[in-house]
């Protein structure tokens, strides 16, 4: 097996350079958009109603667009000629740095809504903060993505309220989804040496600040939906080191099938 050239936070093995950190940071953002986009595209033709089918695939399209910008940029910084497609289709599971939340299976509609809400609220506050990053490309990407993610956040927040403040059954189901998915939210705000290096450069933002804003958004929506915020317990971890849940491998196998089976295919 070839050695992954794009190292994550392999603490203690090497001191990362700013360039390596920046590549890793772009992959974290780009991979999360890509994997969540892939999950949303799985809803295509399976939506509960036509309008939702269209909404979820629209969100997938936005996320793929955002992923393309970040992966292209990561490839450019790396300078080895790898394109967005090479990065999306020719990396193995352990070389992905997306959040554990984004790879959660779609489950039922409520599970999808909760996962998207937590991830979109995170993206909303992250992109707001990164809009003033000292890295021009990251700042431009953040300002652009923020406009799209605002619609994603509103879409999921409105559904949380509608289901939470709905029937007994919908309330029960959405509360169960929240309780089950909660342990994947801690991973969103983890940091390692990549963050330390880039925060010093004014490129990255402190995740603790994102967490404070995320908490406010989550509390506001859950309160309005008459739902209960779970108590923090064990939190899943690993994505910063390229460690994932068992679901990512299956997702990637499907996503990468065509370019793996037909390596010279063009589209």
């Amino acid at each position: 097996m070839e050695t992954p050239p794009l190292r994550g936070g392999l603490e203690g093995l090497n001191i990362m350079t700013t360039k390596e950190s920046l590549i890793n940071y772009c992959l974290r953002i780009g991979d999360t958009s890509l994997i969540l986009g892939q999950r949303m595209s799985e809803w295509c033709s399976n939506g509960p109603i036509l309008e939702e089918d269209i909404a979820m695939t629209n969100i997938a399209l936005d996320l793929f667009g955002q992923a393309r910008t970040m992966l292209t940029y990561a490839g450019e910084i790396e300078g080895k000629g790898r394109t967005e497609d090479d990065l999306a289709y020719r990396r193995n599971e352990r070389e992905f740095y997306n959040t554990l939340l984004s790879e959660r299976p779609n489950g039922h509609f409520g599970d999808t809504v909760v996962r998207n809400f937590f991830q979109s609220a995170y993206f909303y506050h992250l992109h707001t903060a990164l809009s003033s990053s000292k890295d021009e490309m990251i700042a431009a990407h953040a300002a652009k993505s923020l406009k799209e993610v605002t619609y994603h956040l509103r879409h999921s927040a409105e559904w949380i309220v509608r289901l939470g403040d709905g029937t007994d059954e919908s309330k029960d189901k959405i509360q169960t989804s929240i309780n089950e998915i909660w342990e994947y939210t801690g991973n969103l705000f983890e940091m390692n040496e990549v963050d330390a290096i880039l925060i010093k450069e004014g490129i990255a933002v402190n995740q603790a600040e994102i967490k404070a804003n995320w908490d406010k958004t989550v509390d506001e929506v859950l309160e309005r939906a008459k739902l209960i915020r779970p108590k923090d317990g064990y939190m899943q971890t690993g994505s910063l080191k390229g460690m994932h849940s068992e679901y990512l491998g299956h997702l990637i196998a499907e996503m990468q099938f065509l370019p793996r089976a037909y390596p010279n295919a063009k589209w």
Partner: protein
Amino acid sequence: MAEIPDPEIPVITIEELGVLRNVEIQQEKVVITITPTYTGCPAMKLFEDEIILALKNKGIENVELKMVYSPAWTTDWMTEKAKEKLLAYGIAPPLKGTEDKGVLFSSNLKMVVCPRCKSKNTELKSQFGSTACKALYTCKDCLEPFDYFKCI
């Protein structure tokens, strides 16, 4: 350049839409700067192909296309003429200042007029429509569904 139509909404041009940001002639080369409406807009590749083809038809082959993301595209860049054409085409144009500042909930939705019967009695069906840039509405008077070019 001003003749190239939007591939999805052929009544307006890429200039009127605000996608075409700059045209510069550098000695023998034409440098065209464009910006995407949405990051995932599938029409962007077609925009690029159409621009190159249009210039080729005028005998200009030395073209460089630059894609910029900043400043981020906004519906405010769309010209008044383009908005009129959209309305005539059956798409409700973006209303100035309707960008919903309330992030979480669509609290201050403004009146979107039905492009068919001009009724103000319309209803938002979904924030996401037939393309990334549109929302889906229904007119409660003439009962027709229609697209609204949403503000970003």
